[in-house]
């Protein structure tokens, strides 16, 4: 029932213990929007730092010593190895504790986990990335992977929406893509209280009015809050997207990341093993998914 997803890199298991976090240093903390920072991390172990491989769409389990562990998607691209960038919102116990840490302090990391985006299937095709709200966190990895490997994709389109300019993750970075000829970067905000926003104002799905797309040769990667899924998915279906060409990144409670603890199951699949990237076809076949 589920479409085949190529094998992503598997977490290195040290000492035969898949739950063992490897220590990593906080290299940089960069505030993106309110309560949302970009943490740059590097493994203390030099060889692990240099050999760590992952696919866009995979995630890691982040430990704050003495507090706990939480699943976090990787926001940096595998084409830029050496460090990991995690875009983290202060929202739970672990992330609140993380926000109290300072650069040069140490956290635990293990992974990468999950399937990641089906890169082999997406290669040579058009790529449409649709991010709403915090959805850019996992999609940024795919975006930069595609831009760093530009010859492996045909047309690349990025649609990103936020409530206000101040709420848009990676605002400066995405702004710098506007006008580039090798990527169609469409940014929109629901409202612009500052008056300084030079991009579009309007709801995310309205961006579909500004370009044409060929669903048969495109993969759409979508991530955002439920309202984004609701309207964007409908729009993609209206455009004629096959259901297995719509890729979504899901969030679930996770305690292990390796298919044991049971928390992230949707229907009969584990988000940590079979996801977090699911096709829309998976979604309508697995109960409670969206």
């Amino acid at each position: 029932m589920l479409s085949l997803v190529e094998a992503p890199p598997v977490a290195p298991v040290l000492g035969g213990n898949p739950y063992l976090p490897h220590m990593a240093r906080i290299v940089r903390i960069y505030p993106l929007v309110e309560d949302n920072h970009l943490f740059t991390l590097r493994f203390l172990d030099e060889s692990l730092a240099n050999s760590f491989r992952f696919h866009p769409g995979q995630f890691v389990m982040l430990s704050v010593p003495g507090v706990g562990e939480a699943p976090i998607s990787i926001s940096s691209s595998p084409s830029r190895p050496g460090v990991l960038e995690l875009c983290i919102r202060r929202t739970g116990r672990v992330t609140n504790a993380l926000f109290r840490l300072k650069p040069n302090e140490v956290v635990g990391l293990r992974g990468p986990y999950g399937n990641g985006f089906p890169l082999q299937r997406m290669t040579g095709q058009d790529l449409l990335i649709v991010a709403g709200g915090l959805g850019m966190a996992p999609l940024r990895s795919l975006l930069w992977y595609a831009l760093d490997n530009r010859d492996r994709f045909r047309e690349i389109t990025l649609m990103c929406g936020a409530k206000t300019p101040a709420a848009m993750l990676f605002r400066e970075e995405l702004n710098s893509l506007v006008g580039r000829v090798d990527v169609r970067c469409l940014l929109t905000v629901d409202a612009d209280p500052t008056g300084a926003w030079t991009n579009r104002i309007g709801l995310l799905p309205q961006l579909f009015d500004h370009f044409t797309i060929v669903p048969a040769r495109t993969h759409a990667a979508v991530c955002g809050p439920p309202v984004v899924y609701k309207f964007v998915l409908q729009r993609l279906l209206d455009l004629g997207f096959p259901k297995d060409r719509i890729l979504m990144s899901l969030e679930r409670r996770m305690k292990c990341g390796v298919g044991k603890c049971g928390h992230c199951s949707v229907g009969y699949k584990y988000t940590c093993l079979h996801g977090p990237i699911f096709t829309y076809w998976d979604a309508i076949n697995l109960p409670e998914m969206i």
Partner: protein
Amino acid sequence: MKVLKLPKEKLDFFAAVVQQFGEVHAPVEQDGKYVFRRLTRWSEARLDYPRTILPPKKYFLPPREALFRYQEGQGYLPCAEGLDRRIILFGLHACDVYALNILDQVFSGQYDDPYYQTRRKNTVIIGIDCAPDDHCFCRSMRADFVDRGFDLFLYDIGDYYQTLVGTALGDDMVLATAPLFEPVTQADIDEYKRRSGEKRRAFRLEVEIRDLPEIFEMEYKSGIWEELGEKCLSCGSCSVVCPTCYCYDVADGVALGARDGVRSRSWDSCLFSTHALVAGGENFRSRRSARIKFRYYHKQRGFVAEYGRPSCVGCGRCISACPVNIDISQVIHQLRGVQDAVAC
């Protein structure tokens, strides 16, 4: 597989000899119910027990266990206390051995769980056959017999236990007591088969699981789930006593004022309201009806897709344990549109 027989009157002698292979744990009577625990003397063992309160999973996935110690400057250090204990679990029923085989699959695969696997390696399993009671439906779940996952399995054939030797370790135990075991005769085999047929006919509870996954798909929106949600207390008793429920929670503990801590895991249940709650407040199964449906769905449908069979083994513990008398066999009958639960 090696097949031998052990005279019944020699069982206590056999039990005394196998002590050299580890601590002997067996079902023991406690307040009219039965529990697996370490024997202080062999006469405590009650091998004719119906079922224990907790299944043997407690030996492999303890209710609570430390995974790591965290020490500043040293990172996470795996805990290994107790993993090297050599335990002999004496008197497991086929359904419970079957359940361990299912847990083996969950705790292996792409990522081996070293805690579970080490305990499993260090534990000897000696199975024993049993007679079904009113809550047993292992036959329906194809778990009334088990062909692996044990070191020895004893079948009552009257004056003897006909013994299947499942592993090299089991064989060592037989050899350590070599004069006790005898070759089986055709008459012993015939007696085994006669009793096997008798056991088959003794089941009073039956469910049909053949196209149950399909029926679960079709009845996903059935009103039955709402009714169950109204009744269910979300107490999680069924998960605790289930031999194949393995969901666990992980929590870090740290001493006040200290920077060192312990990461431990403990049994969890998909019936608890926080099971699918994520940071930020979204809860994917906030309703009780959604949670109890999920539990049945995962066992009877999800496992079939993932592992080729349901994870339920029909041990009947959840039926015994539910404080509001939710009965899985009744639920399945209701979904199938069969009124009478006792359908044999």
